[in-house]
C-alpha cells in the first residue's frame, strides 16, 4: 500500500493543545513541512510567542526559544546575528505582533533582518479569552468590545502586511488564508517561499496567515471558516505584498 499521507517528523509526538476547529494546527503543519522539504531541520531555530502558540516549542522538532510578549523579532535578531547560518523563524499572533510587539516587528523588517515571520491573524486575543485585538474588525464583538469594535473609540484594524511592505527592508511579504484546501495549498507555497528567501540571504520575510478562532468567535468550526472568508478577506486582501527578486 502506498503512503498517501503521513505526519511530518518536524512535528513532535506531543498532542496539540489547540481548540477544536482552530487553524493553528494546520499552520504548524505547513511550517513543519516547509522546514522538512527544504532539509533545514538541523539549522532551524524557532521563536515562540506569547499567545495561543506559546507552547510551539513543544511541537516543532527544532531548537526553540520562547520570547516575551511581542519580542520574538528582537529575540530572533539576537539569535540570527550570533549564528547567521541558522534559519530563524518567529511564530506570532496578531496581539503579540501587531500590538505590544509593533516596534519589534517594524524595526526587524526595516533592518531587513534575515529571518522569517509566520504571522497568524485571527482578529482576536485567543489565549486570554477573546479580547479585542489591533486586527479585530469594525463592529466585531469581543469580550472587551462587547458592543462591537467602534472605530471612533478604538480605531481601525491594522493591515500589517501592507504597512510593512512600504518599508525598504523586507524581501518577501504575503498574506494567505487557511479556510479551505485551495488556500491551504497556496499558504504552504508562500511559507516555503519565505524560508527560501531567508536561505538565499535576501532578507526579511513575513507570511500573514488568516486563521479561524471558533471558540472566541462563538461559532462552530464550519461557521468560523465561512466567517473568515466572508469578513476577514475583504478587510485583509490576500496576495503577495512585496517580493524582491
Amino acid at each position, binding site marked *: 500500500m502506498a503512503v498517501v499521507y503521513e505526519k511530518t517528523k518536524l512535528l513532535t509526538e506531543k498532542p496539540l493543545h489547540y481548540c477544536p476547529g482552530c487553524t493553528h494546527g494546520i499552520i504548524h503543519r505547513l511550517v513543519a513541512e516547509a522546514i522538512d522539504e527544504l532539509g533545514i*531541520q*538541523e*539549522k*532551524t*531555530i524557532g*521563536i515562540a510567542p506569547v499567545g495561543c502558540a*506559546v507552547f510551539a*516549542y513543544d511541537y516543532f*522538532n*527544532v*531548537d*526553540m*526559544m*520562547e*520570547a*516575551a510578549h511581542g*519580542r520574538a523579532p*528582537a*529575540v*530572533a*535578531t*539576537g*539569535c*540570527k*546575528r*550570533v*549564528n547567521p547560518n*541558522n534559519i530563524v523563524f518567529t511564530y506570532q499572533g496578531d496581539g503579540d505582533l501587531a500590538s505590544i510587539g509593533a*516596534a*519589534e516587528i*517594524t*524595526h526587524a523588517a526595516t533592518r531587513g533582518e534575515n529571518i522569517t515571520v509566520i504571522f497568524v491573524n485571527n482578529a482576536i486575543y485567543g489565549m486570554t479569552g477573546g479580547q479585542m485585538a489591533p486586527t479585530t474588525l469594525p463592529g466585531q464583538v469581543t469580550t472587551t468590545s462587547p458592543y462591537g469594535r467602534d472605530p471612533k473609540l478604538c480605531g481601525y484594524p491594522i493591515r500589517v502586511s501592507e504597512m510593512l511592505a512600504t518599508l525598504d527592508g523586507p524581501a518577501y511579504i504575503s498574506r494567505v488564508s487557511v479556510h479551505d484546501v485551495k488556500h491551504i495549498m497556496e499558504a504552504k507555497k508562500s511559507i516555503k517561499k519565505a524560508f527560501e528567501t531567508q536561505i538565499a540571504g535576501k532578507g526579511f520575510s513575513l507570511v500573514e496567515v488568516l486563521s479561524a478562532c471558533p471558540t472566541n468567535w462563538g461559532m462552530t468550526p464550519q461557521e468560523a471558516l465561512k466567517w473568515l472568508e466572508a469578513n476577514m478577506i475583504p478587510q485583509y486582501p490576500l496576495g503577495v505584498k512585496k517580493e524582491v527578486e
Partner: protein
Amino acid sequence: MGEKMLMKGNEAIAEAAIQAGCRFFFGYPITPQNQIPEYMSKRLPKIEGGCFLQAESEVAAINMVYGAAGAGARVMTSSSSPGISLKQEGISYIVGAELPCVIVNMVRGGPGLGSIQPAQSDYYQSTRGGGHGDYRMLVLAPSSVQEAVELTQEAFDLADKYRNPVLIMGDGLIGQMMEPVEMPERKEKAELPEKTWAATGWKPGCGRDRAIINSLYIDPAVLEKHVNKLYAKYAVMEETECRWQEEMTEDADYVIVAYGTTARIARSAMRKLRDEGIKAGLIRPITLWPFPAAPIAKAAEHAKAFLTVEMSMGQMVDDVKLAVEGKKPVHFFGRTGGIVPTVREIITQVEELAKGGK
C-alpha cells in the same frame, strides 16, 4: 598587564568586555552611558564575528541579548536608570531561562526622567530583583575605572558559571571620569562548562536533547521546583561570591559603609577623621548582592555606631541594619537627585556622632 592608558570609565568597560570575549552588544542611547555603545559600534564591526546593533528601544535591546545569549554568545547591554527600568521585563525572562549576560547600569538621578547626574538610587531595583518574580542577580559595584575593568571581565565568567545575568552597577561619575587603567591580559576562561544547552540547531541523534530556551512552567509544582533550583544557585553565590574591602575597621569606633563613587569620598573623610583623632573605618561592599553582611556583623561587635552614606535617600542602609541586627545604632547620610556628597559633609556627620557619644 598591558600598558597604562587614560580612559573614560564607559570606554574602559566596553574595551574590557571585548577583552573578555564579548562579541555582541545591543543597546540604545541614554545619558550618561553613551560612550559604551559608541565604543562598541566602532570596535565590534572590526572584530571577526563581532556585531553591534543599536536597537529600537531598551526593551528590544534586552530581548536581542536574550536571543544572543540563548544562541550561546557572550553578550552585553548597557543603559542608565530609566532605560534599565525598561529592560526589567527582559531581565526577568533571562533569569527565568537561565541565560548568561552582562548588563551595565550607569545610574542617574530618579524617579522618572530624574536627572543625568550620578546617583545610587537604583540599589533596591538592582539587589531585590527589579523585574517580576522570585530571583536575584550578582551586582558588582566598582569604585574606580580600573576596578570597573576588572569586574567587567570577571562578570562574563560569573555569568557563564551561574547561567545568570550579572549587573555592573556604576554611576554617572564612574562612567564619565577618566583615570589611568591597565587592561589585564585576557585570562583563559576559568574551567567553564560547554554551552550544550544553547539553541544552535538540532536533529535527531545529534548527541544532545532539543534545546528549549524558556521561562514558562505552566504547572505550579514544576515552576516551584525550577525556582528552588534558581535559589540553590543563589545560595552558592552567597557562599562564594561575596566581596568587599575594609579599611581601618579593626579598632574603629565609627564604621562608614559606602560603595562605588561614594566610597571614595567616604575614604577621604575617614582618613581626615583619623587625622583628627576620631577612630573611623570604612567597609566598601563590592558585591551589592550578595551583600557582605559578615564584615559588618563583625565590626558591630566593637564599633560604637555605623554611618551608611549613599547617593540616595537610603536604600543600602536597610541591608546594613539587617547585618547589624540592632546591636549598634545605624545612621544614614545621603544626597540624592544627582548631588554628590562632599568629604566635609561626611566628616561633619561622624563628628556629630562622636560629640554626642553616639
